[in-house]
């Protein structure tokens, strides 16, 4: 059962929403650092995807997190953007290998995978905090939040990916 990619994706979808809204949204480290770990959904999603379905699923993921955290449509914007730019990021990070049908994460080096994760997190945080605060007067606050929150998200995502890594991955 756990080999069926659709079931795995659904389980991941539900768990990531719950983990995000029940644990990481209440972390408030130093008063404002709440890592946005749902970015892992975009890291773990199957590589050969139907893009339209991926964008729709991402929209739902973002919208659910928004409803829970009362930030209407902010996470939804971030999620659909991540889903939309993911193929370009993958081509950028994994190079020509990515175009082969046989490409999996196994073929990629650790550095390539970390770069991919880092870029996803960077786009997510820049977009999220700029839209959330939405004011040029608070540019320093935005930069501070982007810097520290993306750093903490990055650390936690690295930990989670190694924790849940498959044997053969």
């Amino acid at each position, binding site marked *: 059962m756990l080999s069926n990619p659709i079931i795995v994706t659904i389980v991941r979808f539900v768990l990531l929403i719950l983990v995000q809204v029940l644990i990481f949204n209440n972390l408030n480290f130093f008063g404002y650092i709440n890592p946005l770990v749902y970015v892992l959904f975009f890291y773990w999603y199957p590589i050969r995807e139907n893009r339209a379905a991926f964008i729709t699923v991402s929209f739902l993921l973002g919208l659910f997190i928004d*409803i829970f955290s*009362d930030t*209407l449509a902010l996470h939804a914007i971030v999620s659909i953007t991540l889903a939309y730019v993911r193929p370009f990021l993958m081509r950028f990070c994994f190079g020509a290998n990515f175009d082969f049908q046989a490409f999996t994460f196994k073929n990629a080096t650790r550095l390539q995978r970390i770069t991919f994760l880092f870029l996803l997190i960077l786009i997510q945080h820049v977009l999220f905090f700029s*839209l959330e605060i939405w004011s040029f007067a608070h540019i320093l606050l935005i930069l501070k939040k982007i810097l520290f929150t993306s750093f903490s998200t990055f650390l936690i995502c690295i930990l989670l990916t190694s924790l849940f890594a498959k044997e053969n991955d």
Partner: protein
Amino acid sequence: MQRIINFILNYRNSVLYFFLLIVSLTFTIRSHSYHQSYFFNSSKWFTGSVYNVSSNITSYFNLEEENQRLSEENEKLRNQLFNTSTISDSIKYLRVDFEVVHARIVKNSYASPRNYITIDKGDKDGISQDMGVITTKGILGIVENTSANFATVQSILNTKSTINAKIKNTNYFGSLKWDAKNFNVVQLIDIPRLVPLTVGDTIVTGSMSSIFPENIPIGVIKKYNLNQAQSSYNIDVTLFNNMANLKNVYIVKNKNRKEVLELEKTTLNAE
């Protein structure tokens, strides 16, 4: 026509992306200036129940501290009660303007610029929009959306929030705002320049609002300076509440609010 359809089919992913993007952006930008969305908020049955389960589990962790806070409040109220003579006589003739309902926070938030708090009382308990929410120590916010069993509260830590406040024992009032920077400090603006201020003065709710009763404590003055036009003060107020650690709250219903609003409306229309 054929070409247009082919074009859309070729770029269907981008079309889908930009469509969803525009929908989401509209929602987001609207919620920056208007009220929170009525349909998508955490007071709804599903989100409320999830938060309720989670809060039932985590509420045990700071039970002791919460008990301490509540018995401190009881102590204060008992002091008032024992030192007010002839209370039993006067209470019969007292007009009841405000009614208080207690509730528990199931989701707190203070790290974002627009914070909403979810509480476990809703329509069933007579809670409706624009009721004031306070804690044992001071004000917390205003009810924004309700469902049958839950309600969302617009926290004072919300850049959209504006609350009438004044300096204790005077009648100089201004508006309480938040600049999104520090969750312990809010800003009081529009206090005229001629008002004598001292660091440490207490700020309480004013009488201009039909939501909160007068003289609910808010915080103390941390520092103050004149605004750019040199005409009024911008005051930083340190809150009495520790916004990061809240559990029990009271919702204040103003029984006269409807009457006050109607009267104000007729007066405006008559002009």
